[in-house]
């Protein structure tokens, strides 16, 4: 198992290198100019001032030299400095990522638990009113985009009903408290979780229906196992194998979705950081973010494979 994981990580190294090149080129090809974005448009444009700033930031060197420098720094955990604030990008990411992970983690956890339970119930009560209701909910959830759902939630629960705050992670000017934090987390978490719940529910339902009439399920019943054991141990252990892949893929979608939700709810994670960096052409920050997302994809895939081989012995022993 450990060697399997190590091998997977080694295979990932060239992929990571490729990603850094693409990230670097993309950031450099972006339209707009960081130096111009820094200098407010009503300052008289001093050509010398621009040249000076470019020289300080190393932007006048050939591209491959810039890449070499950047990569060398990267290996040392140095992602460069924000053009805007001069803050190290690595530190910006480290301080903001817990917020993103909290948002993603909670949404994912809720959507897995809810999605699997509702999907299983839906399958067991196939063609009942409950099943039709959940199916309708599922299709609605899948069709509504995250950002739209986010705005609806803000409108109803924050602006009209005033049950939850509209933005931020904690109430400004108060000490941190979990209760306050969770109240802030509720709406963005819900906006992110609802779509995923629908997806996981639909896949779980289909997958449970696929195995529910399998022979080993009948064997378990013939042994006198309770319905709960039959479903939880025998049906779900098999039905969830394909669902794991879906969850793995949705990890990366969730990371992307977090960017939009963080922006709508002003959730101070790295998605919000990314969006403001884009509008300011702050390419070190943009590159930092894109690198992190590349890692998220790699880790998500690795995690999926590991969990997959853990639940399906036929893979593990190959």
């Amino acid at each position, binding site marked *: 198992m450990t060697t399997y994981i190590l091998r997977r990580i080694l295979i990932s190294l060239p992929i990571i290198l490729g990603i850094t090149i693409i990230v670097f080129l993309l950031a450099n090809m972006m339209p707009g100019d960081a130096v111009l974005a820094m200098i407010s448009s009503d300052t008289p444009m001093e050509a010398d001032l621009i040249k000076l700033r470019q020289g300080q930031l190393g932007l006048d060197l050939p591209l491959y030299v810039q890449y070499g420098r950047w990569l060398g720094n990267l290996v040392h955990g140095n992602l460069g400095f924000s053009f805007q604030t001069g803050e190290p990008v690595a530190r910006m990411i480290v301080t903001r990522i817990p917020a993103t992970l909290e948002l993603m983690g909670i949404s994912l956890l809720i959507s897995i638990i809810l999605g699997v339970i509702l999907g299983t119930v839906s399958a067991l009560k196939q063609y009942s009113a409950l099943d039709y209701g959940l199916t309708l909910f599922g299709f609605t959830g899948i069709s509504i985009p995250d950002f739209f759902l986010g705005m609806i939630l803000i409108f109803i629960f924050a602006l009209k009903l005033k049950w939850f705050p509209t933005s931020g992670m904690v109430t400004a000017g108060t000490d941190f408290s979990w209760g306050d934090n969770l109240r802030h987390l509720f709406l963005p978490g819900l906006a992110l979780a609802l779509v995923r719940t629908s997806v996981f529910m639909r896949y779980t339902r289909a997958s449970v229906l696929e195995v529910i009439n399998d022979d080993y399920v009948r064997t378990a019943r*013939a*042994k006198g196992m*309770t319905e709960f054991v039959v479903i939880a141990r025998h049906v779900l252990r098999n039905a969830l194998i394909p669902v794991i892949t879906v969850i793995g893929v949705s990890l990366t979608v969730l990371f992307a979705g977090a960017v939009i939700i963080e922006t709508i709810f002003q959730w101070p994670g790295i998605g919000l950081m990314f969006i403001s960096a884009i509008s300011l052409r702050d390419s070190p920050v943009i590159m930092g973010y894109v690198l992190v997302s590349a890692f998220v994809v790699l880790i998500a895939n690795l995690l999926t494979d590991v969990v997959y081989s853990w639940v399906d*012995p036929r893979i593990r022993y190959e």
Partner: protein
Amino acid sequence: MAHLLEVKDLVTRFYSDRTTIHAVNGISYTLDEGESLAIVGESGSGKSVGVMSLMGLIRYPPGRVEGGEALFKGRDLLKLSPSEIRKVCGREIAMVFQDPMTSLNPVLPIGLQLGESLRKHMGMDKAQAQVRAAELLALVGLPNAADRLKDFPFQFSGGQRQRIMIAMGLACDPSLLIADEPTTALDVTIQAQIVELVKELQQKLGMAIIWISHNLALVAGMVDKVIVMYSGYIVEQAPVDDLYERPLHPYTLGLLHAIPTLEQRNQERLASIEGMPPDLRKPVTGCPFAPRCPYAIEKCLQAIPPLQAVGPQRTSACWRAEELRGVHTFGDKL
């Protein structure tokens, strides 16, 4: 002495696509402690549904047990609540299924699958269950049993898996073991080994056995009596030797005729009874076998023949059963 199992007028139907499938149509039989019974018939004749009905394994939708009684040790299995029937299944009545490739859970180690009934029914803890599981695997002749508890079904051959299924069936020392075509999916040589194993285990442990098969020859050497099913009905019932010597229902005659002789063994196709298998969607008005029966007369199409005594401990559902005594080969003139 009271019978171990007494099935009376069992009726089971399936409801799918707005049609009713009459899978089991009022079958009755008895089985004593330690006795062995074979249920034979072509595929689709209701053999599996008949025994699964006893164990509460018919689920609605689509299927439902609609009538009859099944007294097991004096209690009607069909009237037990789901939690009561679960105490009987796996504990007092165990079942081995047809396809060992699909009847074991592919993602759980076999030790766990063997252990779960021991833990539920015998109150063992995890460690005790594993010790007992290894003993059971050794009992059914699995080599290196103790080392293989953590292995998964795909790591065993078909014959080994069927041995594991049998070990699972025997786990709680049941008084009745139902084996539903346990050898159909296996190679001929492995088939013989499994048959030998079950015979040997029955002698050793003394449980009653219901052995389901579509192959009359296979069960010949191992059971006391035989029930022949056709179209959800019992058409003949007799001690095994009597049945072979003188079948008293044309369908049984046909089945015996369909047994390949030594010379035919290597032929691609086995001889089989001519004609279409019955359509279970229509309730019959006459003998269900009449459309395929060379001896059918007017009466056979008009009235269902009742299962009547035709000798000591034997019954047949044929209007012309007595006349059949003179017939030796299926299709011979009466």
